[in-house]
């Protein structure tokens, strides 16, 4: 692999998503979103609720058609979803009629079409072991807690041997203890497998602890990258060390200050975009 593709492993340029607006110009929820991920990097995306984080992620996953801009992984344009970019959704999204093992197997079968039954099973078991679910292979999703289900989701995603892992608020619904536990689990796996990862989060501490870079999004509509923060802590990370770092609170403050600033300037921003939309829809009327 050339240095160029590994430095610009995932390239998102001028990504725009416009949803149709029945009463005027299309609403550009996300506009001119630019981001470049190096290979093996973990980038978190943080922003206010509804700003368009999931929209960006689903577009990268290929589940949501893009309105404008370009998306490339390893220098190749993305067309549609695929197992090279596996997603862990906001909710666990397990198939409730399948056991843990079958849920993971579904993807493994697809990614190792030439493996024998036994090999595939070993792969599934390996990844379920990694997320600490060796005992729950034959349980159905309804028999498991939210945290366990989310673990299965993660195991399923990672078992695909993806080049890019996309996590949409993977711990959003979990209590803080489970959340920390899972963060460590994921980090451990990512440190080992060196998967390029994009993780959406609402949690400032999670963003700092987990990622190499934090991409802060401005408020929608026309949301885009407001600022990027590099997190210089070395990997693998130890939570206590990160938290005790003398400058930890400077990072935390920078993120919170950004989010607060977005909150404060929200009304003005919405007003501005609204006016623009209004003009767009009124022009033909006055003409």
């Amino acid at each position, binding site marked *: 692999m050339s240095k160029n593709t590994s430095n610009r492993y995932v390239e998102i340029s001028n990504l725009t998503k416009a949803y149709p607006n029945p009463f005027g110009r299309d609403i550009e929820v996300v506009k001119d979103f630019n981001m470049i991920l190096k290979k093996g990097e973990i980038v978190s995306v943080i922003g206010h609720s509804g700003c368009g984080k999931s929209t960006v992620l689903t577009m990268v*996953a*290929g*589940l949501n058609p893009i309105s404008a801009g370009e998306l490339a992984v390893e220098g190749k344009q993305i067309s*549609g*979803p*695929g*197992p090279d*970019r*596996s*997603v862990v*959704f906001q*909710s666990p*999204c397990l*198939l*409730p*009629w*399948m056991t843990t093992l079958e849920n993971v197997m*579904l*993807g493994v079968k*697809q990614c190792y079409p030439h493996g024998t039954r036994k090999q595939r099973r070993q792969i599934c078991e390996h990844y379920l072991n990694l997320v600490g679910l060796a005992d729950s292979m034959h349980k*159905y999703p*309804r028999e498991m807690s939210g945290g366990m289900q989310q673990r299965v989701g993660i195991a399923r995603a990672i078992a*695909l041997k993806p080049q890019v892992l996309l996590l949409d608020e993977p711990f959003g619904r979990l209590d803080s203890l489970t959340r920390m536990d899972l963060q460590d689990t994921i980090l451990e796996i990512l440190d080992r497998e060196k998967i390029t990862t994009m993780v959406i989060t609402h949690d400032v501490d999670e963003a700092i602890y987990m990622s190499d870079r934090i991409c802060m999004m401005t408020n929608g509509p026309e949301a885009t990258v407001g600022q990027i923060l590099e997190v210089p802590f070395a990997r693998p990370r130890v939570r206590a060390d990160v938290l005790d770092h003398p400058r930890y609170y400077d990072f935390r403050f920078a993120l919170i200050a950004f989010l607060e600033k977005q909150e404060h300037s929200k009304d003005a921003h919405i007003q501005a975009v609204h006016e623009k939309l209004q003009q767009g829809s009124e022009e033909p009327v006055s003409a």
Partner: protein
Amino acid sequence: MSEQTRIEKIKYGLLKTIDVSGFKVFDPVVRLIFGEEPQKQVKDITRFMLMPIVFVCCCLVAWNFIAPRHKTKSGEVPTPAQVWNALTINDTLYDRENEKESDFALSDDQREAKIEEVKTLIETKESESTKLKEELATIEASAKQKKAEALAPLQAEYSELKTTHKEARAKRKIEAESLAEAVTKKKATTEELLTFLRDSSRLKEDEKEKEQIIKDQIAEINNEKPKSLQAAQMASDSAATEVQHLKKRLDYLSSGNRSLKVAKAKDSASSALTELESAKSPAEILAAANTVVKNEERASKIAKQEYPRASTIWFQMWRSLFTVFIGFVLAAVVAIPIGIMCGLNRVAMACLTPIISIFKPVSPVVWLLIFQIVVGAFFPNPETHPFFVFLNSLPIIGRLNANPALIFSACTVAMCALWPALVNTALGVSSVEKDHMNVAKVLRLGLWSRLTKIIIPSSLPLMFAGLRISLGVGWMVLIAAEALSSSEGLGKFVWDEYQNGSSLTFSNILLACFVIGIIGFILDRIMIVLQRAVSFDDGAATV
């Protein structure tokens, strides 16, 4: 300790089975047996088991009270006891058919033994029957006497009344005539004559009424049948039919027996064969040879012959079940693929929506007629049509006598049961969670795995809910279809009873009503169990 856990295991196993089979009512009973919170369980049992039982009993009592008080053209509304009686009668009919059937098929020693057995039975039954007849005669005589005694004073009164009335009428007639004369002589006005006539006609009415009252009383006494007489008559009747049945059995064991018939045919074949050997002229030879072949054929045909059963309620029930099963399977086979297609493809949905909306509300009667014409065209000669020949050669199904009527009843059932299954399947498929579809997209599952791994499992609960409705609809439609198409089945049973007008008619119809209801209930339960079995979350509804 381990003993206790084992008991626990059994308990929870039982509870689960009860739950899955949809009989949650029995839950407290099981818990009570295992001694869990007896007070609560007893309370639950009284509330949710005893109370319904008491209520049903109340209904039965009310029925028993009201029924005999409503007189109809075809007799009184039967009481529960009468319906029960009808059940036993129908049951014995069924048993007798079974006996005759087995007799028909018996051969050799077994047959001989059976003949002896039946003969002794006939003797005892016959004596019983004559005894009962005698008893009936005496009871009848006494009843007649009693009736005569009761009637005598009434009849006397009646004739007396009649004569007095006759006299009064004659008197009035003379008076009227004299009055008319007076009018001509201007001694009385026409007005007076008219009033007199009006009065006399009123009087006549009154007299008639009085006569009628007594007449009614007489008629009532005449029609009255004392309970003892009724019972005796019934007993003697049933004994007589029993004797008749036994005689019929004897017939099937002797001359009507299959093995004997076969032997006879074979005999005549062999005798014809000897004839053939001794025959001289070509015409004789040909005739003899023909007889041999004919008799041989007959022998083999008879050997395959089955006893021609008369249809009983249980036979009709099995046939109805078979028909509804065929119709239901047809409906499912058509509805599920189309439903899946509609759910997947919005264009397909749009194409089918008008068809669904137009055909859904059409009455089953119309469908029946249409199918009768359309399907009938496929089977111009049903006896020899390979399809029916095949169906009737199958081991158990063959006994149900499949014919075109069955097929178009089944088609009607299918046509009416199609829609709920189709609509629900389409709904289930189109409402597969978006997240699950996203999983499929990310994994790049092919259409087939997408269908089998995600779409179908996820829409199964709704699909089965639809099938459950379909089966219910189908069962209801079937009864009407059978009544109308006279395809053997419970519907025809009801219809025949209605047409026959025997003393048992009303009871039999009510009996059929219960049989249909109970079977419908059982079918529904089965579907619930299936639905629960395929639903992945525990949220499936039980009604």
